[in-house]
């Protein structure tokens, strides 16, 4: 009986580390830039990693919200409001995602 109980009670908790999931800063960068390029309100020529969404790419706040929602859907977790306000460039987004997913940011 005790054997049975031990087998039933044992829980395996695996926290996947970022490296095991195959994430690196380059992969994150690639995914983020793909998502942003698919956004039709942004012209691909003006887009660089440092281009500001509102000032250079001409997005307004609702467009910014839509873009962040696309990134939330891509990476699978919610970005809270106070963090979302600060993410104004693709490089900010990449840095934030690296911090959240515990990938080394260079």
């Amino acid at each position, binding site marked *: 009986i005790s054997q049975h109980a031990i087998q039933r009670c044992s829980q395996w908790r695996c926290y996947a580390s970022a490296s095991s999931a195959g994430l690196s800063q380059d992969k994150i960068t690639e995914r983020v830039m793909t998502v942003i390029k698919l956004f039709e309100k942004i012209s691909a020529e003006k887009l660089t990693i440092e281009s500001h969404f509102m000032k250079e790419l001409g997005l307004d*706040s*609702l467009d910014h*919200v839509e873009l962040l*929602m696309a990134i939330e859907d891509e990476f699978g977790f919610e970005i809270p*409001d106070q963090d979302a306000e600060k993410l104004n460039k693709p490089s900010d987004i990449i840095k934030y995602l690296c911090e959240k997913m515990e990938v080394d940011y260079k």
Partner: protein
Amino acid sequence: MSSAGGTLIRQAVKEAKPVFSATSEDARRRVLNLYRAWFRQLPYIIREYDVPLTLPMCRRKLRENFEKYRQVNDIRVIDLLVAKGQMELVETAHMWKQKTHVMDYFKQTVTPKPTDFLGKFFDGKEP
């Protein structure tokens, strides 16, 4: 005399009691969260109500409804608009509405005035 008048004037100018949000930052967050909630609900609305709409059409309509109130700056008015939008979202999401209510968002409310001669004639205006 003048001091009594002064205190009366100071009492008369009070701050309006806030509805939900105290600052415009708060109100902005509420608006953006409402937009997010509607945006996420749109695919389910299309599927559940079986409306003859596409997702881009719905998104444009959502954006249009938000742009209608872009110029509003009064925090209490913004809060009330957000509350009304939230109520609409709850009613739509719970399926308390019907297909016609959802299609009502796409109803034209202003009939365009006729410009050509026949249009004006049928309308009763003298040319």
